[in-house]
């Protein structure tokens, strides 16, 4: 059953969590790479650690896992 989204629905709540964080990873990772490798670092404290890149990568991995793990499958449809 699609966990928690109700009767007859295919999408799990965790799928929404995955898609949302995956989307943010997709936005942040290339932006962080552009900052890092293109020499466009912001003037923030500890910018030399490239937090945008690494945080974007983390969100991408987290989001990918949840999106794939909880993707809608034909057998998921709840018949209750």
């Amino acid at each position, binding site marked *: 059953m699609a966990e*928690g*989204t109700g009767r*007859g629905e295919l999408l799990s709540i965790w799928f*929404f969590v995955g898609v949302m964080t995956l989307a943010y990873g997709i936005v942040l990772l290339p932006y962080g790479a552009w900052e890092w490798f293109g020499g466009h670092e*912001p003037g923030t404290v500890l910018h030399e650690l490239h937090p945008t890149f690494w945080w974007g990568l983390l969100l991408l991995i987290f989001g990918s896992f949840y999106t794939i793990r909880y993707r809608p499958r034909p057998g998921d449809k709840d018949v209750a």
Partner: protein
Amino acid sequence: MQLLAAMLFLQNRQLTHLSPVDIIILLLYFAVVVFIGFYVKGSTNTSEEFFLAGRQMTAWIAGLSFVSANLGSLELMGWAGSAYQYGILATHWYWIGAIPAMLFLGIVMMPFYYISKTHSVPGYLQLRFGEGARGLAAVSFGFMTILMSGVNMYAMALVMKVILGWDINFSIWVGAATVALYVMLGGLRSAIINEVLQFVLIWAGAALIPILGLIEAGGWTNLKAQIAVNVGNTNYTHMWSTLGHFKDNPMGINWVGIVFGLGAIISFGYWTTDFLVVQRVLSAHNLRAAKMAPVLGAAFKMAVPLIVIVPGLLALGVLRDPHTHQLIHLVGENQVDAAHPYSYNEVLPLMLIRYCGPGLLGLGITALVAGFMSGMAGNVSAFSTVWTYDLYGAYMNKRAPDKHYVLMGRWSTIVGMLISIGTAYLVMNAASIMDYVQALFSFFIAPLFGTVILGMLWKRATNWGGFLGLLAGTVSSISMWIYTNFGTAAHKADALAHIALSRDAQPMANDMFRALWSWLICVAVTIAVSYMTTPRPESELNGLVYGATVIPDDGATRIWQKPIFWACIVAVVFVVLNIIFW
């Protein structure tokens, strides 16, 4: 409400601005939130589905939603400011001020809420004590909830104005319309899905601040040493060792106020009887999930100080002007001037800007917006349920078809939001109203806990006892508030000394002791009146009271399936954390 007062003062400047990548992140969030509302609309056709999410939620989802509904941005920013002002003592509001109550709700109280099949906390009072207690609780809760929603809405608009320079009207209407849309369409189901999402986003947006901050400070031990140097003592990094007397800690409170006022009364009152949070747990799909949800919620709640308290402490240790490298001193909202341009309550945005450039800043702002929206959605969905079940359905139209109540739930969501918007504008024009709204809300929490807990644990409590106890507790709380808040400065100091039992007590102690006294009065009146009136037969109390109810088996067969096992683990971690930060 110090936060709002500070924001009012500061609203003519802005801290930063968003870049295109930040705006993309924010728009993505709004798109998903609204999509969820439309997506679940098809499965919210009955009142059980609309108001209680069909009682289909797992323990994880109900538990996360339970915590998220409370994790509003006003709370995040306010307590980060308190951590700067009072140090690590602010953590008490997340640990002793939450964890024991959450575990108690899950293990002791949830079975009665759940098996009584009540739709709401006022609904439980009706089953246990009759219409008088229900009516009083429903009217006070509905009224206060919707006013609080308005205060939250205005707070969000003001924060966006201060941080980003956004127009207040724009923020109020966009925030309100988005929340109203997804709650009206999908009811509690939609609110819960969004709350889970918001919980994840709050962490995704805010967790980088403590991570990078602790790297900059050189770890926790170095941070403590820097704070001690900067403030001149070590009181800001100890949770219990400074609570022997009111004068020994920055908060002006003692351990009696923290343990009994906060830990035993205010916390239990909020986490076990405030329908805004209890409603999330009532959506669980079976008894075991209903018991596990608050336990899981407690585990997550214990981690929240990392993103709220640590940023405040980091500011005490490392917040320096990037150009002069001088320590930035944050001040109270009344002391902000050219030399001290920032107040305590700006700690979280200041730390966000310190570490987060474009992209991450958008994520942080999205976390704040998500927090505000989860708070507003919590208020408005709880209001719509109490209005429809406990006021409209109980007193105005008792026999309407189920579809009519669902329609009423949708309309009351819209009307509730419009009243909230009206409150937001009222607050905009008269800021002092905010303090009264906050105070009004606190009047009912402690006595309500007294009434509910006696109702659940004591068979002898009678209908009259419950009603009059609740009334007496509420009236006494209001009286004490008037006594300590009006009159000359000398009178107020005397009044505070009487309520908190010490001349050294500060206003924070006032709230704790007022809650303690009003609870004791509620309990004393309930007991006295109950012994003077006729109790209900035990057969009528089945499913409502301990000792008159056979609690059904929750289906747990192995030890790791038992909620009590996980509650013990959470309790042990809670004790260990308090010892570590003693």
